[in-house]
């Protein structure tokens, strides 16, 4: 065995693309390099692979950590897909139902990932030490041409439009975009919004800007970019999204499924998925009409979460003392703002005996209990 002692290994041009067994060992090629959570689109706690309509008026999360909005005259659906490039199991697919062939200036359809400030603090954006980052992703569309996206800060008053070209229809292609960090503007470094990565699906001129430079405007795509919502039946798939420090796109960071799920659960936690017979906890009767249970989160959530409970007649059931009570929903009780635990209760339909203990479940295929601390 030989030992090589050297201070640097560079490529033939003196750069940092040297490979060892096919891998590029850059300084940033380490665990946690990918600031995107669920970049491989594998976690879908909310919809479990079901197709949903992209909403108008407000953005909504579909698969974990990815949200979308469609404020055009067309319609879009979004769904986790098993169509994926080699090395991936899933992608996120948008499909146009009804097209909007003439977008007004202020109309917009987009897909977005918001990175928490803590996870970009080291990039030092908004300072003279701002680091360069590289975005890489796989895309596939029934359309070809130039597509657009953008990076923005939390307030969307700093933006960097970028473009990429899809050359062949219905073919996976990997794209990379390198961006010099923004040296001005305010970039969140705490539990709030840090950096948003946008992919335009049809963006009017008001929100489209010139690629390749930072702006004080709210640009979410590139001027002249292809509109996915502009063509009936058009599809747009994306996966393998990575945002990392440095000027080189390194191999996609593979994290264990459980690790990726835990990262997602900081922002959204499903206690009971939409199904019947799902346990929702052991609860106790404070009095004859007040049933409560405490829910501990598997990981500390980003903020104290909103309790999101399906509400319908007899959607939930409590088994106690040889009998049972049905009730319509779980509600969050007042109390301390906690990111670790929450008390949920019902006092509108419950009729039991104070001091009794019950095991509780969903009692309808449409019932669920979720916790939301998204950005």
């Amino acid at each position, binding site marked *: 065995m030989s030992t090589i002692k050297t201070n640097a290994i560079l490529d033939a041009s003196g750069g940092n693309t040297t490979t060892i067994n096919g891998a590029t060992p850059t300084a940033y090629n380490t665990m946690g390099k990918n600031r995107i959570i669920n970049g491989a689109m594998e976690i879908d706690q909310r919809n479990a692979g079901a197709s949903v309509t992209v909403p108008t008026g407000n953005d909504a999360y579909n698969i974990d950590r990815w949200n979308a909005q469609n404020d055009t005259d067309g319609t879009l659906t979004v769904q986790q897909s098993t169509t994926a490039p080699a090395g991936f199991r899933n992608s996120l697919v948008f499909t146009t139902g009804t097209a909007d062939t003439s977008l007004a200036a202020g109309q917009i359809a987009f897909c977005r990932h918001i990175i928490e400030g803590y996870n970009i603090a080291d990039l030092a954006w908004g300072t003279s030490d701002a680091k360069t980052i590289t975005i890489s992703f796989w895309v596939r569309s029934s359309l070809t041409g130039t597509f657009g996206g953008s990076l923005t800060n939390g307030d969307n008053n700093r933006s960097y439009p970028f473009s990429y070209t899809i050359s062949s229809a219905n073919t996976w292609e990997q794209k990379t975009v390198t961006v010099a960090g923004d040296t001005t503007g305010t970039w969140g470094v705490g539990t709030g919004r840090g950096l948003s990565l946008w992919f335009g699906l049809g963006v009017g001129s008001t929100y489209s800007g010139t690629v390749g430079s930072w702006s004080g405007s709210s640009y979410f795509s590139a001027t002249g970019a292809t509109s996915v919502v502009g063509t009936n039946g058009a599809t747009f798939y994306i996966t393998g999204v990575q945002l990392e420090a440095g000027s080189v796109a390194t191999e996609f960071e593979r994290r264990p499924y459980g690790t990726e799920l835990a990262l997602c659960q900081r922002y959204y936690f499903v206690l009971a998925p939409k199904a019947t017979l799902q346990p929702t906890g052991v609860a106790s009767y404070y009095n004859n009409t007040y049933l409560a249970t405490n829910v501990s989160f598997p990981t500390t959530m980003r903020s104290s979460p*909103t309790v999101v409970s399906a509400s319908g007649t007899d959607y939930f059931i409590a088994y106690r003392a040889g009998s049972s009570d049905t009730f319509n929903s779980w*509600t969050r*009780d007042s109390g301390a703002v906690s990111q670790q635990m929450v008390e949920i209760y019902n006092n509108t339909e419950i009729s039991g005996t104070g001091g009794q203990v019950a095991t509780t479940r969903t009692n309808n295929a449409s019932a669920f209990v979720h916790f939301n601390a998204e950005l």
Partner: protein
Amino acid sequence: MYKLHRSILTNEISVVNKIDDGVLMSIPFDPANTDYQEYLEWLAEGNTPEPAE
């Protein structure tokens, strides 16, 4: 529509509820919670929630 919620146990009001399409959202008064931020924006537009019972 938003409706303020008073705790049975402590009598405090630190949650606001919202029902939308068969989904009940119970939103804590946490400034970091984006649903609470939306509620504050709704208030700032001059709206008023239903009072707590």
